[in-house]
């Protein structure tokens, strides 16, 4: 039996591979970790956000970097799986030596990475998850939320519903933390307007025929929808032949006025429905916004860019400005600098609240309508809501 030889060979190989991966990290550029989905159903959000991060890094480095040091981002695929994202965050921290991480998209994954950030005392900037638990019950010193929470979103949506004269509201969305958070906030924001029905469907479902008839049978005159992206697309297509969007006042949460969604649905997008978005490539409100869009267009190779680029871009600028202000990349100093920090963004100044670790970023709300010269509907008029 020569088996033991292979035992030794195998053992040496495993040991070797472990040592091989432990090469030392260079200290010179400041590395920022990025944990976002680049595969699976949410990949397009992750990839678009990374484009935004990339543009911000380019601009910052062209302007001389941070305190003389160049900036670099290191991206890892979260696979929209909390275990994978946690391991990736630990790898970024212990091997790449990052002191700050941008991530993630879904609330569960963001909370998982936040837990790592808390343990490892590293800054986590959550660019796209709205769940209020991130900076609510799970708030800690090192986590910051770079997007309006469900509480803010509920206030904006409730105002729209009130403006439209809604008398009785029913609500629908995926059975998921985002939706339950949002609906809870809606209840207090709507005040004396009664909620006559709440319809949750299982996450990932794309057959909405039952839901549509339930909503139509309900006594409500207004519907607040919260199905996101693909779910909304499927819902809109399935609801159209039922005349659903003509039968009720419909207002949609979850930023479905985005170019991502309107481009998909084209003429199937419900005409005149009110919804929101983080950014539009066709918004021409300021020089800064135009410059940002030109930069993203160059990276993506199309001028019709997705709205998530802004989230990545803004997150990177927040971290970079905080590091400049702190004069170091030490997480405790960066946290202190981030608290109360105001930065200029393509949509105007945004402040990170010192106490709540939440931002007051403006978002767009308005009706999505057919515009001349485009087969994709657009928001018009555009309202920038702070």
């Amino acid at each position: 039996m020569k088996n033991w030889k292979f035992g030794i060979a195998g053992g040496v190989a495993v040991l070797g591979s472990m040592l091989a991966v432990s090469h030392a990290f260079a200290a010179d550029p400041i590395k920022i970790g990025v944990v976002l989905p680049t595969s699976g159903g949410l990949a397009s959000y992750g990839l678009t956000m990374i484009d935004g991060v990339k543009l911000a890094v380019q601009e910052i480095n062209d302007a001389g970097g941070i305190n003389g040091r160049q900036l670099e981002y290191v991206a890892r695929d979260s696979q929209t799986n909390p275990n994978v994202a946690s391991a990736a965050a630990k790898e970024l921290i212990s091997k790449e030596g990052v002191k700050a991480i941008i991530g993630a998209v879904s609330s569960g994954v963001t909370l998982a990475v936040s837990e790592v950030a808390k343990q490892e005392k590293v800054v986590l900037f959550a660019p796209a998850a709205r769940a209020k638990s991130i900076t609510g019950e799970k708030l800690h010193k090192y986590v910051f939320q770079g997007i309006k929470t469900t509480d803010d979103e509920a206030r904006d949506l409730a105002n729209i519903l009130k403006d439209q004269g809604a008398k009785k509201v029913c609500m629908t969305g995926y059975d998921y933390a985002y939706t339950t958070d949002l609906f809870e906030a809606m209840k207090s924001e709507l005040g004396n307007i009664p909620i006559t029905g709440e319809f949750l469907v299982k996450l990932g479902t794309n057959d909405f025929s039952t839901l549509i008839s339930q909503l139509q049978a309900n006594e409500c005159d207004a519907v607040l929808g919260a199905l996101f992206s693909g779910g909304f697309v499927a819902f809109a297509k399935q609801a159209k032949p039922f005349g659903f969007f003509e039968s009720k006042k419909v207002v949609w949460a979850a930023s479905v006025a985005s170019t991502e969604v309107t481009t998909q649905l084209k003429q199937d997008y419900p005409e005149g429905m009110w919804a929101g978005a983080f950014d539009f490539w066709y918004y021409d409100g300021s020089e800064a916004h135009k410059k940002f869009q030109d930069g993203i267009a160059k990276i993506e190779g199309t001028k019709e860019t997705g709205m998530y680029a802004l989230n990545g871009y803004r997150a990177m600028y927040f971290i970079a400005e905080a590091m400049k202000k702190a004069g170091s990349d030490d997480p405790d100093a960066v946290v202190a600098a981030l608290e109360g920090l105001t930065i200029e963004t393509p949509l105007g100044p945004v402040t990170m609240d010192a106490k709540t670790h939440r931002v007051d970023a403006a978002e767009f709300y308005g009706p999505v309508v057919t515009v001349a010269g485009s087969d994709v509907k657009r928001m018009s008029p555009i309202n920038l809501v702070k």
Partner: protein
Amino acid sequence: MFTNPTFMAIQVLNSLSLAMNLFIIASALTLIFGVLRIVNFAHGAFYMIGAYVLYSVVGSFGETDLGFWTGVIAAGVVMAAVAYVVERFLLSRLYDKEHLLQLLFTFALVLIIKDAVKMIWGSLQYSVSYPPMMSGAVNLGITYYPTYLLFLCILGPLVAIGLWLGLEKTRWGRILRAARLDREMLGALGTDVTKVFSAVFVIGAAMAAIGGALAAPRVAVDPGMDALVIIDCFIIVIIGGIGSLWGSFVGALILGFLTVFGTLIFREWEIVLVYVMMIGVLLVRPWGLFGQPEAERH
């Protein structure tokens, strides 16, 4: 709510249209399952390919009726070609191997197909409209109902009858049924079993793709669209009985009604209900409602 006849009529139609769309996909799975004895995890990925092919064809033809139906056929043809290559050069070498290897082979296909789809079409979501001739709704007297969904309600039984005639009345069907019962005997009698297997795999894959193309106007076409449909198909096949055509028809109806009325009654706990149902059937009648117990099981 349950006393409102219009509402109930719509719910029944909803159950039927969902069931029939799933049936077209699941009947192909049960065919592969029954004849090849392979748990095909890649069935959802085949379904996804169909939807993407339809999207591309509609994109180049424009959103016309011709574009849509060409796309549906193209979905089947493209998938059949891919499946033929996969079966000939890879899968056919595994027939005499362990179940585990076959199962993992289809799992490998899932991983490869999903990434290949992402390389070809990107990671964005796409959407396809209903074909123009079916974009409206039909007055059924009691209520209006979308034409396309009615079309699915009618297409399902037609597919079932077509498959049944094919299996019962043709020589090919007899060979297939024989292959399901005893492949060694069939081989000994001089039939080229490998050709039978190849044909079943190709037809099954093409049907999954056509099912995906037909589902495309109702859903968002995205890289994650395969994950749930495969579980739905497993549930249907298990409830109905592996290899049983009418079993999967009834299984699809049960799942369709369970999904719609389960959602109405149990609300979001319906998610648990379907798995309980699946486990229940497996325990009481592992061979399904319409399947036959196998002699070799111990």
